[in-house]
């Protein structure tokens, strides 16, 4: 299956062994989108690499930037200003919603419902408009800078976001009725794609896939960064460990993100967004491992500096890569027709897998 199958979420090839309609084994064949982003980092300086960080998981560009910027700032010993931290958290959460909306629509398509995608994209459009106003682009934002942001928020940003926060929970309730409560969708996802917590541990699965298996692990809580300790939000978990559980986790997470956004809007402090950074970024030799929670799981950035102005070694721990590795486990004894639905519920991003 693949590498251009319309429902494989990018360029992925699955090598299947089948017995009639039953799947005996699945071997994902990856690497079609490999662009050697880790090697590129060794030739660019710390500032120049930032736009490349967007290109790991292109639906979660802000989250990737956050991770990379956090690693560089730790290495340099820079602490961003409070306003900058709040805005960064806000952007990351907005991006989480936007990413989950794509997931939501894509899963609906995978299970045969096209309408939901259009509604999801309508709401996502509101977020993308906000991103566009703030960062100047709709997908590859390059909004964060080492030591701050490209610019402060545009004037009507907070109003737009408030409007979004007001309508969005209603919309999620609508999706819920339309898709999650739908009998056909439920038979396609319930008790399908079982992933036990033990398997999840063995395969290093993180993110909604893990929380769908009943483990309340979230980097935002386990290793809090920026203002997350001050924020109130729940980490939704479901113990059914099937596609439906993962789906419900994401649906719940969108609402939790809205909660975070509302708190961000209420608490957003004034002041500067940028701190002074030297023109040439030359961190002391050392290494750092920074983690953030991306919509797909734990995103880590291992960065080694040798004292020069470009990274000596950069490695990103991309969540889709590890989640996809557990995908064959979820597909044991599934029907062929369910493969795509399971893949949709794992929510991989091939740019994130192949790097």
């Amino acid at each position, binding site marked *: 299956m693949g590498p251009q199958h319309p429902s494989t979420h990018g360029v992925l090839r699955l090598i299947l062994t089948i017995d009639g309609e039953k799947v005996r084994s699945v071997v994902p064949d*990856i*690497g079609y989108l*490999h662009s*050697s982003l*880790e*090697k590129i980092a*060794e030739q660019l300086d710390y500032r120049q690499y930032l736009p490349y960080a967007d290109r790991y998981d292109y639906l979660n560009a802000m989250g990737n930037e956050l991770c990379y910027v956090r690693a560089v700032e*730790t*290495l340099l*010993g820079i*602490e961003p200003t409070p306003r900058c931290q709040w805005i960064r958290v806000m952007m990351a959460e907005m991006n989480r919603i936007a990413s989950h909306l794509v997931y939501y629509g894509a899963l609906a398509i995978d299970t045969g419902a096209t309408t939901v995608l259009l509604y999801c994209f309508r709401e996502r459009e509101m977020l993308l408009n906000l991103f566009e106003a703030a960062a100047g682009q709709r997908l590859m934002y390059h909004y964060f800078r080492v030591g701050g942001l490209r610019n402060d928020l545009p004037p009507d940003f907070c109003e737009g976001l408030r409007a979004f926060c007001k309508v969005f929970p209603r919309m999620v309730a609508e999706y819920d009725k339309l898709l999650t409560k739908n009998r056909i969708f439920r038979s396609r996802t319930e008790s399908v794609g079982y992933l036990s917590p033990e398997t999840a*541990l*063995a*395969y*290093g699965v*993180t993110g909604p896939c893990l929380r769908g298996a009943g*483990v*309340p*692990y979230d*980097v935002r809580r*386990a*290793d*809090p960064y920026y203002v997350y300790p001050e924020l109130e939000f729940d980490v939704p978990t479901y113990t059914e460990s099937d596609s439906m559980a993962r789906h419900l986790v994401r649906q719940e997470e969108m609402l939790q993100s809205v909660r975070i956004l509302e708190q961000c809007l209420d608490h957003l402090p004034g002041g500067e967004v940028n701190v002074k950074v030297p023109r040439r970024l030359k961190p*002391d*030799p*050392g*290494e*750092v*491992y920074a*983690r953030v929670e991306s919509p797909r799981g*734990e995103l*880590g950035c*291992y960065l*080694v500096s040798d004292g020069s102005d470009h990274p000596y*070694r950069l*490695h990103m*721990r991309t969540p889709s*890569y*590890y989640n996809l*590795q557990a995908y064959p486990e979820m597909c044991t004894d599934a029907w062929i027709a369910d493969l795509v639905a399971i893949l949709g519920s794992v929510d991989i991003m091939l740019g994130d897998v*192949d*790097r």
Partner: protein
Amino acid sequence: MSDQSQEPQAPEEVEETPAVVPLPDEWQAVVGDLLAEGNSVDQGGLRRGVPELVTTPDQVLGLLERLRSLDEPYNRLTDMCGADLGDHLQVLYFLCQGYTGKLLVVKVNLARDGEVPTATGLWPVANWPEREIMEMFGMTFTGHPEPAHLLLPEGWVGYPLRKDYVYDREHEWTRPDPMREDPEQALGLEEEDSE
């Protein structure tokens, strides 16, 4: 161990923490006998208070297994990566203590064409990262179940993430594509026909 997890969260400490943090006392109890046994386990530290152990290829599996069977086990392998440190290569294992967020790094130094025993027996998750490290750095993970290329095309020449790698355009499109050359054979159709 509890005070370790506190350290990384306090932002003021970032500047003050020297590049190498000595391991806290609790750690002496954990790895103390490993050190005493004459194993080459060194201690060091990432910034932000993440502890780090350095070891050699023939002892890494024992160390990993040991860390996995502690009272508070480091039983989740979150990440693996390689690094080229000039005269030698390095493999890094990022271990987590369950789902608590406590991180530990195990580093293995090895020669440029060295061998490390595979950790796939302990964690199936090591499968892909090890394949990736193998193709990117040219070291070998002995006992790996399927040591084929993962991200790079089959027949790629050289190890791209090594510092001395020079991209050779000549080898650009050398991937043999069985589907293009003989799709029937690639799909195994011929054999079935003959049966």
